[in-house]
């Protein structure tokens, strides 16, 4: 809280709002993204437009709670329709999302023109509902968001196990007696809560980013769902705070800055995440290619040079003193013998591996069989392969 003390009051409210929204949508978005329905949020956000219009037509004034209820009802109906269309079996999730999005948004546009031609000037700006206005956020809005988001997160926390099982294996969840349909509706309903809170604050498009970015980043950093879920919340909160602070510093609109911060973090995670990142995988692949070429030179140092990679492998062997102008050096011969021994051990494992007596389950590593299986197993293998040759 300390750095926030230096901010003016209105900025503090915006930053807190972005924090609450990022945390909530990060966690709730995980369920949508991992079920490959990332754009449900987009469709729900656009589907709130007819709800807002109908609420305005019924109430006749632009009072905020009424519009919020209208938006929530329309969003929920749209979300349930998507689930229903998908359940008929023929239509795939993305098409169901697209059909509901365009149908509801068309309805919203028709209602907007109807309102514009009949109602008084009070309707102006109704369509701005979809674009959001974080700068106009009030402290009371943040409190409402925090309460709704808190309730949603509590529900997720309480039903964590059931929701996880339904998410990853719904037929198993059904077979152990979980109410799968109710849980799916609950997941969808929670998403609608997040979207309805978010749309008015940050707009429909930003909502999509807030739901998807945290999960993509968290998934890059963790393999287990129990870590991904809280991590997504943390990432969402960090993105929200960083983006809104940057926006207030640079006097830019909050929503787009948050999206761009989130996008940059996501791209960084896709490229750099340890183990899973694109660059990480590329370097691992390049290492493996280099080793294969180096081993090929060690096995037959006299072979003619065929490629650039071959040349580079020879240069690297020369640098480490394994190769000179006359062929392999003594150290090079030792390395070649070691390589031959490793390969012989691996073929012995492939041939006799089933007969080796291991104290526990171990994963053999072709590049380092001794290290992965232990000295005892290697001794057994040597014995077995020697016996195999004799017999």
């Amino acid at each position, binding site marked *: 809280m300390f750095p926030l003390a230096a901010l003016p009051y209105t900025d503090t409210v915006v930053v807190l709002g972005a924090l609450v929204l990022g945390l909530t949508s990060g966690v709730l978005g995980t369920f949508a*993204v991992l079920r*490959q*329905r*990332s*754009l449900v*949020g*987009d469709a729900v956000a656009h589907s709130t437009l007819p709800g807002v219009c109908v609420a305005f037509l019924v109430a006749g004034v632009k009072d905020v709670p009424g519009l919020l209820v209208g938006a929530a009802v329309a969003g929920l109906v749209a979300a349930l329709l998507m689930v229903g*269309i998908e359940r*008929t*079996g*023929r*239509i*795939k*999730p*993305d*098409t169901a*999302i*697209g*059909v509901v*999005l*365009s*149908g509801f*948004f*068309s*309805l*919203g*546009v*028709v209602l*907007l*023109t*109807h309102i514009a*031609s009949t109602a008084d000037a009070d309707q102006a700006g109704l369509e701005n509902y979809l*674009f959001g206005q974080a700068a106009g956020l009030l402290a009371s809005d943040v409190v409402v968001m925090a309460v709704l988001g808190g309730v949603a997160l509590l529900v997720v926390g309480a039903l964590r196990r059931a929701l996880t099982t339904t998410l990853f294996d719904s037929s198993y969840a059904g077979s152990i007696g979980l109410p799968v349909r109710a849980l799916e509706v609950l997941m969808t309903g929670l998403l609608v809560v997040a979207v309805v809170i978010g749309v008015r604050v940050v707009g429909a*498009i*930003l909502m*999509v*980013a807030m*739901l*998807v*970015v945290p*999960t*993509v980043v968290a*998934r*890059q950093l963790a393999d287990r769902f129990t870590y991904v879920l809280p991590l997504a919340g943390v990432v969402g909160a960090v993105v929200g705070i960083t983006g809104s602070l940057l926006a207030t510093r640079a006097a*830019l*609109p909050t*929503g*787009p*800055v948050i*999206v*761009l911060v989130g*996008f940059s973090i*996501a791209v960084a995670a*896709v490229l750099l995440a340890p183990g*899973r990142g*694109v660059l990480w995988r590329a370097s691992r692949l390049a290492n493996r290619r280099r080793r294969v070429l180096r081993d090929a030179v060690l096995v037959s140092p006299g072979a003619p040079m065929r490629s650039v990679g071959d040349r580079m492998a020879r240069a690297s062997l020369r640098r480490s003193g394994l190769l000179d102008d006359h062929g392999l050096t003594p150290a090079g011969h030792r390395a070649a013998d070691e390589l031959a021994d490793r390969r012989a051990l691996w073929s012995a494992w492939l041939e006799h591996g089933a007969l080796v007596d291991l104290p526990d389950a171990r994963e053999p590593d072709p590049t380092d069989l001794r290290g992965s299986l232990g000295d005892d197993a290697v001794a057994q293998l040597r014995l077995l392969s020697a016996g195999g040759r004799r017999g």
Partner: protein
Amino acid sequence: MGDAVLGDSIVIIVVAGLVATACGLLGPFLVLRRIALLSDAVSHAVLPGIVAVWLVWQTRAPLPVVVGAAAFAVLCVLGIDALRASGLMASDAAIALVFPALFSLGVLGVTRFADGIHLDLDSTIYGEIAFVPFDAIDLGGGVGVARAGVTLAVVVVLNLLLVTLLWKELKATTFDPAFGATVRLRPQLLSRLLLVAVAVTAVSAFEAVGAILVVTMLIVPAATAYLLTDRLVVMVALAVGVGWVGAIAGHSLAIAYDSSIAGAMGLVCAACFVLALLLSPKHGLLTRRLRRRAGVASAP
């Protein structure tokens, strides 16, 4: 006067029909490849292109704007394709990452540099089909033709060429990309070609009829057709047909109730989808239920 209104109506219907044709040719492939929402992504991702053209050349003339928008649309689809090809996320997550970022870039551009000029979101996201007849060009012979109609006719021809010339290849890689790769059809190249065609179609249609109608015409008629048939060639023909029904019926509804033309066309398409969902001979909800009941009744 009556003739002029009638003429305008025909121009609007023909332009919407051309959009329906261009979209109907590509929509089925998007639906079958499960990337229907790409159209929505493209519709938002063009904004920075339009803003950039304004910032650099200070113009809102149609040709540079379309070129700028198309550049960003292609950037958007290729970015999505690259993220998807990394294997780290599903295509829906890739779509949801890329287009909000591009849209935000456009919004920042508008608020930061182009504030105060008439470059609002409405003009890009809700392009108005009712104004199509007023923007005519002379094709020679003194006859004015709606500019949007000419552009869209070119796009329709291009899409038709793409789909007919590469029909076999597109079909094979849509249903079985692995098979397509084994017989050297280059699924990735075909997929990019299709995505670029979608981007170009969407951009040239936005300018005339607005984003929401383009998104609707790409997804809803194809989804309706998918409920009605199991054959790809029939599906494409049906998608184009449903689009035309939406264009004609939507226009008359909009005139009757004095409402948004694009919105009404979208609603008619959605209504066609609901009808197909309920009544399709093979996949309809009601027909399946009736068949099951008949099956139960005829069983001993």
